[in-house]
């Protein structure tokens, strides 16, 4: 009987109930017209806006196209950041490379991406390149840190033990250091993905013609708050979905970590 408290389904039930209560309160307030549509749209407004989005699309593109455009940009920026960031981060383990590249990377890291929008617009134009570049840059800076710290986190004794097993430096690099660093790298990837997705709205400020961020900004222009809400909710849901997907990948690849955090 005392195993009920440890049952994960109990907590899932509590979560679902909590969300249900909030939703229910919102519906109730909407039905009784307690909500000021200028500040917080009632459920009916959201519902009709959603209906319009799904049937007529927004500003010449279907809702799916808006979502797809944003997802493509985020994935492209993220993908490049991983492909380039991981080798660079590992390369930063080399003292000379770190001395050369380190100051620039450290300097760029705290710069908020939004501040770079005008510059990126000048350099990369108003097409996809500037948006992907912005997303890439932020994710990349984060991946290099992850990869570098992953490499640093490999215990010195593990490397010494490997030498005493007869491995040479190249073997140690590929067969010991990289697998050992993969835990950090995968966790870094999850965070880099979250960053990339969060940046999509900012990136789409660069004259996007389609996308969730564009939809939110454009709908703001026309003060169509229900559409703004739907845009924001969709961004949140997709972010959650992407993170869950990567979490599944992480759990499978890093199954050997066991229950330690």
């Amino acid at each position, binding site marked *: 009987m005392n195993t009920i408290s440890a049952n994960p389904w109990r907590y899932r039930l509590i979560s679902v109930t909590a969300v249900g209560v909030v939703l229910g309160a919102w519906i109730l307030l909407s039905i009784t017209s307690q909500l000021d549509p200028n500040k917080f749209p009632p459920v009916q407004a959201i519902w009709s806006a959603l209906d319009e989005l799904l049937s007529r699309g927004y*500003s010449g593109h279907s809702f799916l196209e808006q979502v797809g455009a944003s997802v*493509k940009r985020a994935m492209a920026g993220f*993908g490049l950041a991983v*492909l380039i960031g991981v080798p660079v981060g590992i390369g930063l383990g080399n003292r000379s490379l770190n001395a050369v590249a380190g100051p620039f990377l450290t300097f760029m890291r705290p710069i908020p991406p939004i501040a770079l929008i005008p510059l990126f617009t000048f350099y990369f134009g108003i097409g996809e390149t500037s948006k992907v570049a912005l997303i890439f840059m932020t994710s990349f800076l984060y991946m290099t840190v992850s990869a570098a710290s992953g490499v640093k986190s490999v215990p010195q004794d593990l490397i010494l033990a490997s030498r005493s097993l007869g491995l040479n430096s190249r073997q140690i690099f*590929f067969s010991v250091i990289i*697998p050992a660093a993969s835990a950090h790298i995968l966790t870094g990837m999850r965070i880099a993905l979250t960053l990339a997705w969060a940046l999509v709205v900012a990136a789409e400020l660069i*004259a996007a013609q389609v996308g969730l961020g564009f939809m939110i900004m454009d709908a703001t*222009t*026309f*003060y169509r708050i229900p559409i703004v809400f739907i845009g924001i909710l969709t961004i949140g849901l997709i972010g959650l979905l992407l993170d869950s997907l990567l979490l599944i990948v992480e759990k499978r690849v890093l199954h050997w970590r066991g229950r330690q955090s």
Partner: protein
Amino acid sequence: MHSFIGRFFRSFRPYMSRYVRLVQTVLIFIGLFGSITTSHAEVRPRINVGIQPLVIGPLYIAIKEKYFDQLGIDVNLVKFTSGPAQFAALAGGQIDLAWGGLGGFLLAKANGQDLNFVSVLMDYNPLEALVVPANSPIASVKDLAGRKVGLVTGSNAHYGITKAMRANGMGKGSVTLLGMPPPQQIAALNSGDIDAAYSWEPFLTPLYANNARTLLTSSGWAYLGWAGKHDWLQKNSDLVVKLLQGWNMGLDRMQKDPELAIRYTLEFTGMDPNQARAIFKGAGYFPAGVALNPEHPAYWAKGSALNCHMHSFLAFGREEGLVKNIGDLDVDGYVVTKFMLAAEGQTTPHLQAPITCKEEK
């Protein structure tokens, strides 16, 4: 050497499945990225025009009804959600022409961008207004003394209120003018952070929906049309002329079939249908050559009403510190007539003896 390479790649094998999967996923992302950036081969000459989401009926109709195709050009519409972004793209060459107000581009010209305005196409005066909330005690411009007004710095609205304050004998600091983008003005007016807002459609509709009252509307200076860089205009004359001809065709069609303007507006912008209708009713649409007509308020010649407004707009820009104060600017040559003439099939404009503008006090 062989065995070294062999062992090198063989050493990967235990991690192959895991890392191959990773690399595959990443490659798919790259592929998607690549697919976005592939461009189609161009058949017709292309002109990139930037707009902000407005009810630009004739333009949308001309695109959708393929009038531009008939004329042999490809018009690529690039949408911007803010003026500054559009200016930057025009400056950077990512768009060839930008749709906007005469005054704004004049200030940009005064700041060093060699721009020309090619044609007056829309009357936006009735759609720009200084409004106050429904329950406001403010009844006239004079009542704004000591209050806060939200507006876009350097815009027609800014010019309008400055003129109105001067006409009412109000000193420069008597009203606090706060610069903020239009969506913020809506929020600030609703929350009471500002007492009045001078804005334009589509940003007025939400305010009118809350029964905002109009204190005054713009009159005489709020005209919209295309502006572009001088050099580009010189080199692409015929593209500009065709753009204007397409506009005329779209305008004709719109007069026969006004619903088309609404329908296409909803496809090109995220506007709400009722909002689009309300704006459409208030706006005036002109054929490309209207600035050649001495009878029309939008007539452009040295000393015409519109011309004088622009001189005074430039003076306003200088006083407010919005433009670099270097020497003379050829305001008279700011609007060029040759494209309009060609579009209308005329060769020489109606000339009027040049008049100098009355000095504004």
